[in-house]
């Protein structure tokens, strides 16, 4: 019996078994940002510890950076204080930092891959749950808390329990207007927001193999919304080609050496799994959320289910969701008037996402009374998009074209919903209050659907606007 990627990579990174029964796992790459790291550095200082492997930690800033005015000092003094803190920590502990003046700056999960820091067969952690994104390259990529950030800084290791591995197979060709975002929403809908507890997800099947690297990143990004510890796709020729020539990727002889390793860690054809779930990709519709977690999702042609159609213990949560959203069972989300459209985030803020969104505009204008913003995921994405004129397509249509950052995905910066605004969003979480207003409402969907919602002023079915 062969081995799956997870087990192969895991065993290569075992330092030792701990008395608690956990594994001490070596971490190949540690990414940090300004929100979840300052307390960890403070704990190091209090204990008189240093950073064990400073070259294996890379810092960027994304959560709190304003995307409209990037001039320092920031007008938000709390944000400015956090910036100064990460600058101080990076300097004191000899860690590379991409600040807003550095062309490598951007959302941590966009920066890692585009610089070639993220590589197959690595263990990668970051104090951010969407670290699962990096699994797109065949890495074990885990979101961690701040005390664990401290552990990794001090020891380059985590104390961790090994999860089981569930293979999620998506076969067949996806329909027109169906994107990686729709696939992951469909998976979470079926398996539930807690269905992944105790598991790592391996995504496989012809629909996954057909995806570009950026689509695989979108898919893996939202793994955490399904409750799994991490998610990954086996590396293939697309992965290897993507990495070639990137700033931090190995070159020449080192590339050849790394390539042998990358190929060796892919799951064997006869690998075993603790669970297997199959999806028919041709049956997945463009998806949209109707509730307050990413599992409360449906096909765009469907109607919001009745409270009674859920198990008894789910009904309270469904009732809370409908109340917060001001929706009723039987409603369609298609046709709902929106107030805000947000294109961006670590889920869908890459060049291919902006291209797909721009394609939908076709000379249209953002509907009256809709605020629409496009936030590239990194400075590199912004530059590349501008080089091919995407910024002009967006701004001529009435979208605001912003600087790189997390923006309205979590609203720790000036980009926020106001009151009970309804937002068509390419981000990853429709939690209550997530986009900055306690009464704000979020509809998750693909960037193409967000662009169309901005133009039409209401949610539409992307399939009616193709060709």
């Amino acid at each position: 019996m062969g081995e799956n990627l997870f087990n192969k990579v895991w065993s290569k990174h075992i330092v030792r078994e701990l008395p608690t029964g956990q594994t001490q796992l070596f971490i190949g790459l540690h990414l940090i940002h300004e929100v979840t790291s300052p307390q960890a550095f403070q704990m190091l200082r209090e204990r008189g510890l240093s950073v064990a492997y400073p070259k294996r930690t890379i810092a960027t800033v994304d959560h709190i950076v304003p995307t409209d005015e990037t001039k320092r000092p920031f007008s938000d003094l709390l944000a400015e204080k956090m910036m100064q803190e990460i600058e101080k920590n990076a300097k004191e502990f000899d860690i590379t930092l991409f600040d807003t003046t550095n062309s490598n700056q951007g959302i941590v999960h966009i920066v890692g891959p585009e610089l070639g820091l993220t590589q197959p067969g690595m263990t990668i952690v970051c104090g951010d749950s969407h670290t699962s994104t990096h699994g797109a390259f065949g890495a074990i990529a885990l979101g961690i808390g701040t005390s664990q950030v401290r552990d990794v800084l001090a020891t380059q290791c985590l104390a961790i329990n090994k999860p089981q591995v569930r293979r999620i197979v998506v076969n067949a060709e996806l329909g027109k207007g169906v994107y990686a975002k729709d696939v992951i929403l469909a998976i979470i809908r079926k398996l539930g927001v807690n269905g992944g507890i105790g598991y790592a997800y391996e995504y496989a099947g012809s629909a996954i193999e057909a995806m570009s690297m950026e689509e695989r990143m979108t898919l893996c990004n939202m793994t955490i919304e399904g409750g799994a510890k991490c998610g990954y796709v086996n590396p293939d020729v697309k992965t290897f080609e993507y990495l070639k020539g990137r700033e931090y990727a190995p070159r020449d002889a080192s590339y050849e050496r790394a390539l042998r390793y990358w190929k060796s860690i892919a799951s064997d054809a006869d690998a075993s799994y603790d669970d297997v779930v199959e999806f028919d990709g041709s049956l997945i519709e463009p998806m949209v959320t109707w509730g307050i977690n990413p599992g409360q999702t449906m096909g765009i042609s469907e109607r919001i289910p009745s409270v009674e159609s859920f198990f008894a213990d789910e009904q309270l949560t469904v009732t809370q969701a409908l109340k917060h959203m001001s929706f009723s069972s039987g409603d369609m989300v298609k046709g709902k008037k929106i107030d805000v459209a947000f294109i961006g985030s670590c889920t869908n803020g890459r060049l291919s996402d902006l291209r797909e969104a721009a394609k939908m505009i076709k000379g249209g204008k953002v509907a009256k009374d809709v605020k629409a913003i496009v936030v590239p995921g990194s400075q590199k994405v912004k530059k590349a998009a501008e080089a091919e004129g995407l910024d002009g397509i967006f701004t001529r249509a009435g979208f605001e074209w912003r600087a790189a950052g997390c923006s309205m995905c979590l609203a720790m910066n000036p980009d926020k919903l106001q009151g009970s605004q309804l937002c068509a969003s390419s981000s990853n979480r429709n939690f209550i209050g997530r986009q900055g207003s306690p009464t704000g409402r979020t509809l998750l969907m693909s960037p193409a659907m967000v662009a169309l919602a901005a133009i039409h002023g209401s949610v539409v079915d992307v399939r009616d606007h193709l060709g």
Partner: protein
Amino acid sequence: MVELISEVEGTGIFVQGNDIDTDRIIPARYMKEVTFAPLGEFAFYDARFSESGDKKDHPFNDSRFKGASILVVNKNFGCGSSREHAPQSLLRWGIKAVIGESFAEIFAGNCTMLGIPTLVLDPASITFLMDWIKEHPSEAITLDAEKQQVIYSGKSVDGTMVSSSRKALLEGTWDSTSLLLEGKDAIKEVADRLDALYN
């Protein structure tokens, strides 16, 4: 060696609903801080206060539960963001143990690292316990990590804890840095071996 945690005793409080995410436990705007110290008063903030600052009906506002330290919740509590700010805010509000139907993994892991035991009970026992707390807000509940039990009203109910978390709490290794540092030589060996594979 840090504190050994085998028993936590206190009065109870409960928050109903499945999939209560970490954004709800601590709204992101209160994370604009370089320390965890001030987070306690912001626990469940938007569920507790209206935008104009008026108190809403929420257990964390209810004077009957003032001083409670055992939080009882339903399914998949703490899902979403990995922010340690969520258990930090609960801890600083006064919560010392959480009992639920199930927990999101990163949240539960963060709790362990702060010395907060998380114990899982079956759904019927959770409902029963919540109802009991409603009637007996000033009576003590004990979480016994050794026996993996919840003891209240003169009876004990069996639950489960993640075995490694339970061990770490009982043996005082829940703050894992020093434990990991003990493996220093082995760490170096793995680092060198991996350098030959990648980097």
